[in-house]
């Protein structure tokens, strides 16, 4: 992407990056004056993608706003692991109301700031995929259509993890959850269901929609920073593996996230005013199998091999590659 003078092709190493950059271009976390929006000592699981994504995202917001921010949190893992009274891990003003209303609460904070003429203070709302695509969807859509001055960040781990891994509207095809068990004629979550919230957000015509992944934290920080340079409703959808719910190795969270991107299952792109304006190309597309096989939630696709399901999921990835022109040779489909 345009900010990136040096391309990182992270093949096999997890530490490449910052050392190759000028100091001013290094990640927020590499800066000497880095902040700690989400402090150490919280109770996230080992390998939690959401904790990593939230810290990088909110630290980037702190940096972009000179610490002038208020965060609103939906109920969920992030809220629970960060806040057990009286041991809040938050170093920023932080408000949690209920599961389904974080976007509306954030709209209220923004309205109060407008009323008080304190618009230098910015508002971030955050929630998991359940809070975002399901129970809070009405409030989110309202916040979008009013173009309230809120950055909403969805940490998508593709199921209700806080309640013990149940299916959400963001659970992928054929994934096991405790409410889409790996039994019956079509084990796991059915094919061709669920919703694509970044595209629904784009349909609202809001100033900025972006997807990001904990596999590419520099990209994540850059998108958050860009979002904070814009007023109005903005939406960032971050893919965050959950070792508990995905039955993946906690040590492989970044690897799993990277394979989601490199297979094409989770495309990284930006859209402004409803039009895709940028995307992160894939150097070499990997087969979806490499991504799926690392996760126990897809185990039933491999024992015995479910060729039909694997082909269908591969087709979904190929469609994304085509739709967002993720391979350098692919022309865009006019999204």
């Amino acid at each position, binding site marked *: 992407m345009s900010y990136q003078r040096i391309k990182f092709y992270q093949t096999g190493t997890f530490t490449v990056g910052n050392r190759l950059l000028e100091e001013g271009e290094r990640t927020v976390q590499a800066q000497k004056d880095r902040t700690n929006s989400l402090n150490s000592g919280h109770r996230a699981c080992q390998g939690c993608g959401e904790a990593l994504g939230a810290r990088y995202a909110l630290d980037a917001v702190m940096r972009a706003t000179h610490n002038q921010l208020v965060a609103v949190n939906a109920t969920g893992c992030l809220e629970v692991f960060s806040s057990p009274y009286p041991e809040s891990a938050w170093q920023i003003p932080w*408000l949690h109301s209920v599961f389904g209303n974080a976007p509306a609460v954030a709209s209220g904070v923004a309205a109060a700031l407008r009323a008080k003429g304190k618009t230098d203070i910015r508002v971030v709302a955050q929630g998991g995929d359940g809070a975002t695509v399901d129970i809070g969807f009405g409030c989110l859509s309202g916040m979008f259509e009013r173009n309230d001055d809120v950055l909403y960040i969805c940490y998508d781990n593709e199921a209700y993890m806080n309640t013990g891994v149940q299916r959400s509207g963001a659970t992928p095809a054929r994934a096991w959850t405790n409410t889409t068990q790996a039994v019956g004629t079509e084990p796991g979550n059915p094919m061709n269901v669920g919703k694509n919230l970044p595209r629904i957000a784009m349909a609202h015509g809001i100033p900025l929609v972006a997807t990001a992944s904990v596999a590419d934290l520099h990209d994540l920080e850059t998108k958050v920073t860009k979002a904070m340079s814009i007023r109005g409703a903005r939406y960032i959808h971050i893919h965050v593996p959950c070792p508990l719910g995905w039955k993946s190795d906690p040590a492989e969270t970044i690897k799993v996230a990277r394979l989601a991107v490199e297979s094409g299952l989770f495309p990284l792109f930006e859209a402004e005013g409803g039009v895709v304006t940028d995307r992160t190309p894939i150097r070499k597309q990997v087969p979806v199998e490499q991504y799926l096989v690392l996760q126990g939630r897809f185990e039933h696709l491999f024992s015995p091999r479910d060729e039909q399901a694997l082909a269908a999921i591969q087709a979904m990835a190929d469609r994304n590659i085509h739709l967002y022109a993720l391979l350098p040779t692919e022309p865009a489909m006019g999204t």
Partner: protein
Amino acid sequence: MKQQIEGSQAVAQAVALCRPEVMACYPISPQTHIVETLSRKVKAGEVGNCQFLNVESEFGALSVLIGASAMGARSYTATTSQGLLFMAEAVYNAAGLGLPIVMTIANRAIGAPINIWNDHSDSMAMRDAGWLQLFAEDNQEAVDLHIQAFRLAEELSCPVMVCMDGYILTHAFEEVDLPTQEQVDEFLPPFEPVQVLDPQDPVSIGAMVGPEAFTEVRYLAHHKHLQALEAIPRISQAFQDIFQRSSGGLLKLYHTDEAETLLLALGSVNGTIKDAVDDLRAKGWRVGAIQLCSYRPFPLHALRHVVHNAKRVIVIEKDLAVGNGGIVSSEVKLALQGLPTLVDTVIAGLGGRPISKAAVIDTVKAACLEGLEEPHFLDLNWVAINRELTRQAEQRRSGPTPENLLREVGSADWKTG
């Protein structure tokens, strides 16, 4: 200044005079005239820098105010009926967070069957949510209670519902003395929050609390309502000092001294009840009336003090604890525990059915002379009910009950008192 004005317009004027900073509204009858008027006033720049948000639901409306109030803004909305139930989760949450939001309830029945007319089922359903609930008898009191509500809410850091009967008050034109901005400013100081989201001094609001402290947090909510029992009369008196009229308080009494029989009710029906009391007293009946102005907190001790010499209290209530009877009368019985006073429950005015003076007078006479069954349903159409019960006993697929009853009563003999 006194003027002939619709209740909703008057309340909107009063709310605007309280200098709200954020309002978020979702339309529902019969609340609409209030929010329409406020939206116009805000857009015309008549309410300072107030922000008016048209939101996607009542749940969204109160959620917006939770954020706004936590950011230190004076916050207001209005709703009723299904809207109040739709926001129920946020209703409890706002009280749990101790956010001093003021909300008008244009009291309306709850479906099914869908019904847009007045009773008190909606706010009663939220009676234990932790909000204070003040009930207005007329539009002057509705205006005055809104002004008091902001002061009460912000002093205690506790949300307040101001309940006014849908249509009966919201859509009634009557004389109202609207205060001046100077009077309201003298009475209502700027909002000084006890907790606020501030990047200079970051706090977490709404963190999880486990068994080790949850009961203590709940006790402090209970304590706040006990404090309100003291604050409500004091603020009502402070209001009287500036505005030169009496409004609000815990209870309002009408000929209660030496009365053997006391009628007790919430809201606008108290006007009818006072007329009935006048007629009965003219004929020698020792009758008085109590208007319960503060339903939450429920003034147990004040009520006991007023009632203790009476033989009988007849509670006329526009709600129903299905299968049990009266909601208000249960609490009146709690207040009078150990006293020989009889308490009658009269379920009346459900779904907007008028409560006539004649019916109140007949009920008092029947209670005193023959006694009333418990609970007593005022003006019940037993013919229609018995026909429907017979139909249900005779055939399994008896069909939808509301539609059957509509057919039964017909429009011609619909009893309106």
